[in-house]
């Protein structure tokens, strides 16, 4: 139960914490505004979403929740792209980045609420759950803080660090949305491009980290990989102006 809880919480928290960490690095002068925006919209959003969970889940032949998640993943990337476009208008940029992060926190927050409150547990199980949640939070925060300081250091030597991290995180959300659209039969999967299960297992620590950062799949399909690559290129093109801006700052 303890291990299961750690894995469950880590899988839900890590993608969100990594995105938060990179956005906090980018918007370092507007941290308070950004964090408060994310917190308020996430709490309200998760409350509204979970109150309609059963209804949404039953829609479209039992695929309503997945399609909503796919839309939220795509919105995360689109709003991240919009915030890159408006990077000179700081207020707009912070607003769109905060809403983008909230879209992702809606998905992961709703999954955690489902796991935490829709389940009836014995007192012993509840204890393991709380301990597992605390451990996962600790691990997730450590990784996010490590990425934050690593990004700051790397940015000094290589100005493309921030645009690349933003592009990878944005493309990861597109990859997740595509995976959902494939499993709901809205997109064709195409043949599997490679199988790196033996090299990096998706259930290993590295697998979880790479999945949270860039949507790592051991057996990616052509559609998923193609759209991931396209998203990286588009976001890098948008982030190019950030690179120029940082070149002036450092």
């Amino acid at each position, binding site marked *: 139960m303890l291990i*299961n809880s750690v894995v469950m919480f880590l899988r839900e928290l890590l993608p969100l914490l990594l995105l938060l960490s990179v956005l906090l690095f980018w918007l370092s002068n507007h941290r308070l505004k950004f964090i408060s925006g994310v917190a308020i919209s996430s709490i309200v959003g998760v409350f509204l979403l979970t109150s309609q969970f059963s209804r949404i*889940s039953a829609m479209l032949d039992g*695929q309503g929740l*997945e399609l909503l998640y796919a839309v939220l993943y795509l919105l995360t990337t689109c709003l991240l792209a919009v915030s890159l476009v408006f990077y000179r208008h700081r207020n707009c940029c912070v607003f769109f980045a905060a809403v983008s992060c909230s879209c992702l926190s809606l998905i992961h927050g709703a999954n955690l609420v489902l796991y935490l409150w829709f*389940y009836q547990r014995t007192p012993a199980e509840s204890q393991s759950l709380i301990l597992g949640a605390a451990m996962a939070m600790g691990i997730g925060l450590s990784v996010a803080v490590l990425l934050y300081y690593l990004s700051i250091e790397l940015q000094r030597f290589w100005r493309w660090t921030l645009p690349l991290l933003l592009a990878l995180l944005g493309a990861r959300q597109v990859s997740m949305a595509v995976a959902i659209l494939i499993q709901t*039969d809205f997109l064709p999967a195409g043949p599997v491009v490679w199988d790196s*299960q033996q090299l990096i297992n998706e259930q290993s620590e590295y697998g979880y980290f790479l999945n949270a950062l860039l949507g790592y*799949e*051991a057996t990616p399909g052509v559609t998923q990989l193609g759209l991931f690559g396209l998203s990286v290129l588009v976001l890098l093109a948008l982030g190019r102006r950030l690179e120029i801006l940082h070149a002036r700052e450092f």
Partner: protein
Amino acid sequence: MEQWLKSDGGTASLNRRIYHLVLRIISSLSLLLAGPLLAEPKVFELFLKDHLFMPSTLYVPSGEKVKLVIHNQDPTPEEFESFSLNREKVILGHSKGVVFIGPLPPGEHAFIGEYNPDTARGSIIVLSQAQWQLQQPVPPQSSLRFADRPTLVESPQSADCKTRLGSHLC
């Protein structure tokens, strides 16, 4: 549009080419989107009760898309997860979820119920088309003409099927 196509000389030719190219792209995209609607996939059902999948081993044919309907008969939610298939689906208590898989090559893919991974486990075995045909039930004898009825002697194919897949499947 007509005026645009009737522009002078070289411009008209270029416009017409662009127009045809756009039409071709739109028709290709519409075919790609309509693709999934054309073929009706085979449906397989999986039941979850007391945090156990039934059947725990599901046989599906290779080379075609199949529809997997998962019925969660428990009061609690469960998340169907298969890493090798890249599939993940939350199913609330007393409800069902649909997941499309394939087309896949022959092989085995494990799946778990992520909220109860110790008990909710199973695997999907993808059979080659030949193996799949072997394990399909023979049509009832009354529906066959006398001359077409199979002999009572066990065919080598059937014996081979039982050896490889078990007698309950052949």
